[in-house]
């Protein structure tokens, strides 16, 4: 998905603002959102991590930029709970209205679909490594070119690395394939590689000196160069 979440290489966001030590959660509600993921799993709304990541990618872009990290989780959580039919937007809004006097629909990040995909429940997916039923296509040292286009759904090929020439650096054997797993289309394990890209290949001749960017990419994203 060509969503706002795909930040790599985008310009205009300004300088990083490092802060000293901070607590794991600023506010109690953030820890509650974290804790509610478990409830969403038990309710069958949150099926796997890839689905959850994609629900975050689908939230309203303005919310993505302004609601903060746990605000994004809150939006994704609500999206999945509503899509699974565990809760409705109306009853959430009613409960919000009970607890406050402001408009409930204001500043909502969730973007539930009216015809959500069916994603089979997988309670055991704490681990994503899987065996492969075929040999890997590439080995360290091979030159590869990444796909030049995006896909409509969840993927882990960042836009900044599309259509680029790289070198296989590491081979990590087989893993659940996020592009299918997020959408209930099966685990379809794929070979995973760390691919190394020269900075100039990604950013042009004015790239910073001595730069290499290493990205973990699934075999279907790669072609022999």
């Amino acid at each position, binding site marked *: 998905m060509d969503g706002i979440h795909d930040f790599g290489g*985008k310009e205009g966001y300004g300088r990083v603002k490092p802060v000293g030590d901070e607590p794991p959660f600023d506010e109690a509600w953030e820890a509650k959102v974290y804790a*509610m993921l478990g*409830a969403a799993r038990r309710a069958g709304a949150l099926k796997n991590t890839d689905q959850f990541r994609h629900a975050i990618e689908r939230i309203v872009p303005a919310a993505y930029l302004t*609601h903060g990290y746990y605000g994004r989780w809150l939006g994704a959580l609500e999206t999945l709970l509503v899509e699974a039919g565990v809760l409705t937007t109306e009853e959430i809004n009613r409960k919000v209205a009970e607890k406050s006097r402001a408009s409930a629909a204001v*500043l909502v990040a969730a973007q539930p679909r009216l015809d959500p995909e069916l994603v089979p429940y997988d309670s055991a997916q704490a681990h994503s490594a899987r065996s492969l039923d075929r040999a890997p296509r590439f080995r360290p040292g091979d030159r590869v070119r990444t796909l030049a286009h995006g896909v409509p759904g969840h993927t882990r090929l960042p836009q900044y690395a599309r259509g680029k020439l790289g070198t296989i650096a590491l081979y990590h054997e087989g893993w659940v394939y996020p592009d299918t797993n997020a959408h209930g289309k099966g685990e379809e394990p794929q070979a995973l590689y760390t691919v190394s890209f020269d900075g100039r290949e990604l950013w042009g001749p004015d790239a910073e000196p001595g730069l290499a960017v290493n990205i973990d990419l699934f075999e279907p994203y790669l072609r022999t160069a």
Partner: protein
Amino acid sequence: MSDESHQSIRTEAIESLLMERGLLKDGVVDSVIERFNERVGPMNGARVVARAWTDGEFKRALLNDGTAAIEPFKLEGGQVEKLVVVENTPAVHNVVVCTLCSCYPWALLGLPPKWYKSPEYRSRVVREPRKVLGDFGVTLDDDVTVKVWDSSAEIRYLVLPEQPAGSKGLDEEALAGLVTRDSMIGVARLT
């Protein structure tokens, strides 16, 4: 109404509804906070780094197969199914990011800082790492190779920082006290 208090109310609304349905129990929130305040944090990664500085065989094992090497530490906290440890040297500086979301080695470093999850960091460090490092107070010579690791899948990365020169001879516990979270992400140096 501020974004924050609105989010707090919406969270509590969903929490109430989930509790009414029997899907959420009291006390779960406290145990989450306790886990990340008490047991899961950068002190875990610091112990691994300190061991690598004092034990050459462990360091070799750690760089060769990070997952196996940290198994005896029995770290909880999640996300680290496969660990790759990348070593900083005078010639190579490593830095880690997740441009697509916020993947981070929780079991070794706890929960990521806000800046790690921010658009500013995620957009810039793959494109201008030296500038970003400059904002963290780190300057590298032009002849140093900078390797940025974008954790786009389930591999998790930990930077093994260079050991500060004045620390030779300290025991592991003292060394672990020198290792900062930011040095294990790669935005700080200890030398």
